């Protein structure tokens, strides 16, 4: 499933463009070290972590997009950094659990 399809289905706010990338799975974490150790390339990261290092970790393991839950928003600097790395960032007021449920309903496993 493409990033833009997910953004539309979950009515996510796009903080960056939805890059033309395929999402092959989902990883939910707020810890940089956990993302480095366990997330997989092609994953969509669901988190409330908005620090630049979360993006640095996502980029290191080739995560394609980040859904920032609970209405959190990264700074403009982090958003610019994500655009350079072609990692899409979306924001939503939904909780991580609600995002996970909706992603499952959308067909992601």
């Amino acid at each position, binding site marked *: 499933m493409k990033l833009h399809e997910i953004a539309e289905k979950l009515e996510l706010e796009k903080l960056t463009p939805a890059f033309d*990338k395929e999402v092959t799975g989902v990883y939910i974490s*707020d*810890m*940089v*070290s956990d993302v*480095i*150790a366990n997330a*997989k*390339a*092609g994953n969509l990261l669901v988190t*409330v*972590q*908005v*620090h*630049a*290092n979360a*993006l*640095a*970790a996502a*980029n*290191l*393991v*080739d995560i*394609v997009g980040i859904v920032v839950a609970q209405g*959190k928003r990264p700074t403009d600097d982090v958003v610019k*950094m994500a655009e*350079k*790395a*072609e990692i899409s960032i979306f924001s939503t007021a939904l909780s991580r659990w609600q995002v996970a449920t909706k992603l499952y309903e959308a067909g992601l496993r």
Partner: protein
Amino acid sequence: MTETAEPRFQLADIQPGYVIIEREMYSKVARSYFSTEPVPPKEPYREGLRVWSFWEMAQSLRFSVRDNQTGETHRFDELLGLLYYGCCKPDSELYRIGELALQNKIFIYVAIAYEAPDGSRLDIPLEKLGVLNRAFNGRLQTKDKKILILPDYFGLYKELSYGQIMLDFGLTAIEDKS
């Protein structure tokens, strides 16, 4: 030629733990070490003329890289963490190099090592960094994307804050600790 599902180099022996940061009472010099227990010594202690006390703690991990072809395992106990070029000041050398590399879809990280007991930095041999680079690049799927993890030839450890290194200081706010 048959494609293998597993890359040749993979992270292994992943051990969650804590980076304990201490500060020397008089010089204000900081140093850190890895601990599997979230219980640093709270009382100041003397080491020669210096008095160290607990300052800050971050969650992190320690790992090895396994070579699936040879079975050899490379430990990275000396690695404090990685620093992404984008987390440096835009007027820094690393940032400028990082921007240049980005034009070729190369993403620059710097391996920051722990301090040795004498205050110097532990060395991460280039051969080992080569293995680390192969481990992370082996995980990538994006076409033409490359990760390049450099040694700290820039001496960044002297000026950076712990908050710039990829460690877990907190959920949503990471204080700068210089």
